[in-house]
């Protein structure tokens, strides 16, 4: 039982962080209909930012969130004005391959600058601590803090999108960019803002997970695919959808633990022979595939 509850709890905690990863993607997609393959690379940069600031200034990675947010915002805006803006005129193929080129670029620049070895945070106020919540379930403090702060960041972005004038302008651009332009909304600047917010939210997520996830320049693609799966499940362009879908996908990534639970509980021999941990992320891709085929709009989607 403890394995099952532990897996579910771990899935939900990581799901909250993944939701923050996905919200950036869904904002960018919603506002300008462009799929950003470089999303995971933004996360990787966020992780490096968190790691290096923490090590350089000797503080806990959790306090580096503002730095990560600023770096992410600037990165997003620079990417938009320097590159993505020119992609918007082209056909969809060009957009897909263009952002893929951006991903390749960021990844290899990181490789050149930081080297290919894994890096991790070993010191910090929360590293190594954990809570026991009963039934033998142990929750690491780093994950709990990351999940909590993710929810805070998520709610902040959601408030920004729904409760402010800028957010309304962003939504208007997403719904009908030509109409928004006629209403006097500077759509070009709104696009840049969407890239800034999107990149900032994902770099924050990166700085949050660096406490328990080692970073190397190739970490991005996995998160890009997970974010695609979340966004597909939640519905492209839907912010609340991203949250619930993040939780679902977080639980999906913990399927090996749940599998183990059933293996031990029913003592099934054939189940223990399946190398479940190597399938860990396959379920996410499979989920994406099934969602796209069964319900392309996603659970909460309005854009299809």
């Amino acid at each position: 039982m403890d394995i099952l509850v532990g897996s579910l709890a771990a899935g939900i905690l990581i799901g909250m962080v993944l939701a923050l990863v996905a919200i950036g993607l869904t904002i960018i997609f919603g506002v300008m209909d462009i799929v950003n393959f470089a999303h995971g690379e933004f996360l990787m940069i966020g992780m490096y930012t968190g790691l290096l600031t923490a090590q350089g200034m000797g503080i806990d990675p959790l306090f580096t969130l503002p730095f990560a947010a600023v770096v992410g915002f600037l990165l997003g805006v620079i990417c938009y004005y320097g590159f993505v803006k020119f992609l918007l005129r082209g056909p969809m193929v060009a957009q897909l391959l263009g952002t893929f080129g951006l991903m390749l670029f960021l990844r290899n620049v990181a490789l050149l600058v930081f080297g290919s070895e894994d890096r991790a945070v070993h010191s910090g106020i929360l590293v190594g601590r954990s809570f026991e919540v009963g039934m033998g379930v142990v929750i690491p403090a780093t994950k709990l803090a990351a999940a909590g702060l993710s929810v805070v960041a998520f709610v902040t972005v959601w408030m920004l999108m729904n409760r402010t004038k800028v957010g309304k302008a962003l939504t208007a651009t997403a719904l009908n960019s030509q109409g928004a332009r006629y209403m006097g909304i500077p759509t070009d600047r709104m696009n840049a803002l969407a890239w800034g917010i999107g990149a900032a939210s994902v770099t924050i997520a990166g700085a949050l997970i660096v406490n328990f996830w080692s970073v190397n320049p190739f970490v991005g693609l996995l998160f890009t695919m997970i974010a695609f799966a979340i966004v597909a499940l939640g519905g492209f362009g839907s912010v609340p959808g991203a949250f619930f879908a993040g939780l679902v996908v977080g639980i999906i990534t913990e399927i090996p633990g749940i599998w183990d639970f059933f293996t031990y509980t029913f003592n099934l021999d054939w189940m223990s022979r399946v190398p479940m941990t190597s399938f860990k992320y396959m379920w996410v891709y499979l989920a994406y595939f099934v969602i796209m085929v069964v319900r392309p709009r996603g659970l909460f989607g309005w854009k299809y």
Partner: protein
Amino acid sequence: MEVLRNALDFSDFPRVDLCVAALVASFLLIFPLFHFSSFAMATMIQFLMFSLYGMGWNTIGGYGGQVDLGKAQYVGIGAYTTSVMLIRWDVPFWVSMPVGMSFAVLWSFIIGYPLFRLKGHYFAIATIATSLVLKDLFEVWDFVGAARGLEISPIKYHPPDFLRLIFKEDVYYYYVILGFFFLGIFYVNWFRKSRLGFQLRSIKDNEDVARSLGINVHWAKVKTYAIATAFVSLVGSFHACYIKNIEPEDTMSLDISILIALMAMLGGAGSLWGPIIGAGVLIPLKSYLKEWLGAKAGLVGIDLIIYAVIIMLISAVEPRGIWGIVEKARRRRSV
């Protein structure tokens, strides 16, 4: 006969194109006589392989406008079928290649049928997802060597072995793939003038109009996807015999899929020469950059940075690729 005549008939191209094509073709035929370095030879073989991949992608992605970023799974199916059959049952290449092709086409129907309900980005990302699922499966499947992959050891055979395609010198491989290359060109030349080719181009221009004209849009896409798959799987089989050591990581990774799409994009998707031009520019560039820059200490990945910048430039400045630039220049002159 009709089919053959159509395949060999290039008369709708301008004379300049044909002259250049003839020059390039004759250069390719006599290339091994120059005795360039073995590195140049390997690069040429890569170029021919990727032109074929690109031609396959071009049928669905260029003429049909369906961006497929999961072609690597079919490279894997072709390569694995050939290796497994050769290693376990000593089946010659010329038998295992069609078998691999049938497996790949079957798989393409299985996933293509539901996938083509999607459009645009959704389709592109879903193809990536299927490709990654298959790669994950191959990485744990013991029968095909799991993550270690398979190795064809050339010692067991007596090269040159034309049945199993095991050679010591690269020249033999060069001529085999060159043969496939010309066949591929003839096939695509027939394809673009066939009924399916016209249907596909109308789907690309406007899907609703195409449907209203009585074209079975879904079925046309699935069929073309299978054709593209057959191309890719063929070269995958060849890849297995040529490289002799295949792993899921380098036959089925996302990079291969993207590279395939990129060839066609860079050269000009939707034109016969596009993928060839794209591969002709990109493959030598890639391997020489790697040779010159990648080997130097402290400059890991700089070849890929330059490469990424090229991708970004081409997609931002001229999405129709090199062929698009040529056609634009031509139109300007004729006006």
